């Protein structure tokens, strides 16, 4: 059941669902849920959303309205029950020490939950404009927007020059594919090796059976976003073959 709903930015919503305690126990950062957005048969498949954070017996997601499914979802009111599958997939492999979180747009939606599980961290946050810039509490944050409406003006890659890569024990990267690819390619090799990305793919089932959610694998073949991921070692992905997927 939806117990909280807030339009945190124009067209960007935070929804809070009541869930079971076993759900909470398994809701590791980086895992996701499959939400049935409509009661009727269309859209046919569920929609995947990263678990943003959990509180007590509730789970939060943050999503942007980008098409029919998210539109229908945004119109759903508090008190309604939606079928929800999860937590699904594999989340972040956590290790102690300081983390660098790099998020583009809604890619940062999963960072609140991750923040709660790491010792300390620095967040680089990019968005098109302040209207699209999420607020992730509890972390030192450097923000950049394409139009300069908040923080510095430019792309997130413009922030990378000053990063002291060797001060981090883990790196989390999430955002649109071209942004992840660009960031990954600018990283020095040792940083690449400790980077985990949260990938996105069109999903059919979300639980490993349909082979719909393939992500190109380094060295050939494909990974399943929903069950091999959605969080992957950045090095395990073939970024060249990712081009144009979304």
């Amino acid at each position, binding site marked *: 059941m939806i117990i909280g709903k807030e339009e945190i930015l124009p067209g960007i919503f935070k929804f809070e669902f009541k869930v079971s305690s076993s759900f909470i126990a398994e809701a590791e950062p980086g895992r996701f849920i499959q939400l049935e957005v409509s009661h009727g048969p269309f859209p046919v498949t569920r929609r995947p959303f990263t678990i943003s954070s959990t509180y007590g017996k509730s789970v939060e997601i943050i999503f942007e309205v980008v098409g029919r499914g998210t539109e229908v979802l945004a119109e759903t009111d508090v008190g309604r029950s939606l079928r929800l599958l999860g937590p699904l997939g594999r989340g972040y492999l956590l290790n102690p020490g300081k983390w660098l979180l790099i998020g583009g747009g809604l890619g940062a939606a999963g960072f609140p939950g991750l923040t709660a599980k790491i010792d300390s961290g620095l967040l680089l946050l990019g968005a098109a404009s302040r209207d699209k810039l999420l607020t992730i509490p509890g972390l030192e944050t450097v923000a950049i927007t394409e139009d300069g409406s908040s923080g510095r003006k430019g792309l997130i890659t413009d922030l990378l020059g000053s990063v002291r890569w060797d001060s981090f024990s883990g790196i989390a990267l999430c955002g649109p594919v071209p942004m992840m690819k660009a960031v990954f390619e600018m990283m020095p090799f040792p940083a690449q090796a400790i980077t985990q990305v949260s990938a996105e793919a069109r999903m059919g089932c979300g639980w490993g*059976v349909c082979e719909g959610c*393939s992500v190109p694998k380094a060295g050939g073949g494909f990974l399943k976003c929903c069950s091999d991921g959605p969080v992957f070692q950045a090095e395990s992905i073939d970024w060249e073959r990712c081009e144009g997927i979304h």
Partner: protein
Amino acid sequence: MADPYRWSFWKREFNSPILLASGTAGFGIELMEQGFLEGAAAVISKATTLKPREGNPPPRIIETRFGLLNSIGLANPGVDEVLKILLPQAADLPCPLIINVAGEVVEEFPAVIERLEESTVPFGYEVNVSCPNVAAGGIAFGASPEIVERISTLVKRVSSRPFSVKLTPNEGSIVESAKAAEAGGADAVTVCNTFLGMKVDWRTGKALLKRSVGGYSSPALLPLTVARVFKTSEAVKIPVLASGGVNRAEDILELLAAGAAMVQVGTWLMRRPDAAFELREGVISLLESDSP
């Protein structure tokens, strides 16, 4: 309280008319782990081929306004891995497992099945003749009754188990192909695989699936399946397993009334992993409300 409703095919009786369709249930293992196989008479595995196949480049799944396009490309680990890893795990399924088999050339079908005969796990086979026949320039095997009969005969020769031939609605005549499958010794026909579909972004002129065309499924296609089940079940004596467009208990009863022996659920299972349970409950309660 035990309900009196039973459905049967291949000399076995089931308390449900529902089969889980190929490609949407894996090998049943994930569903078993979640306790979601209740209500399913049997699981039909994803396609198994002789060699491993990595499948088509993504995107492989695209939603349209009223349905789903898929272009998975028969991704599967190949029959060796299926025998070594998947069938041993599937030995614990609470219901029978039917292995769906695909191939690029006619000879691949009996070759895969010959290998599968090494395992005690399969209940039977589903032979997918909707895939492209590489030797015939990519036209589906199912387009030609002669090839359908040939494949059926070759499979019959190596198989100790019953098998269904899964027909295509896109090429040839589904009724002629059904008759050909029966003539070749098939123990059932599956009617039918997905309809060829496509979505194009008019602004860019580009197809949304990487491979341009794919298989289209939708609850709106139910009347197409009903017609094909009706026509094939009039033409052959072997059971017709219906597949396409089911998402309600009424749909299942309609397909049974049209001549199906059993009814498959595919796309809807991706949305509702517990679809078999829900739909079976629905079927029983409709039958109960209908009986005097």
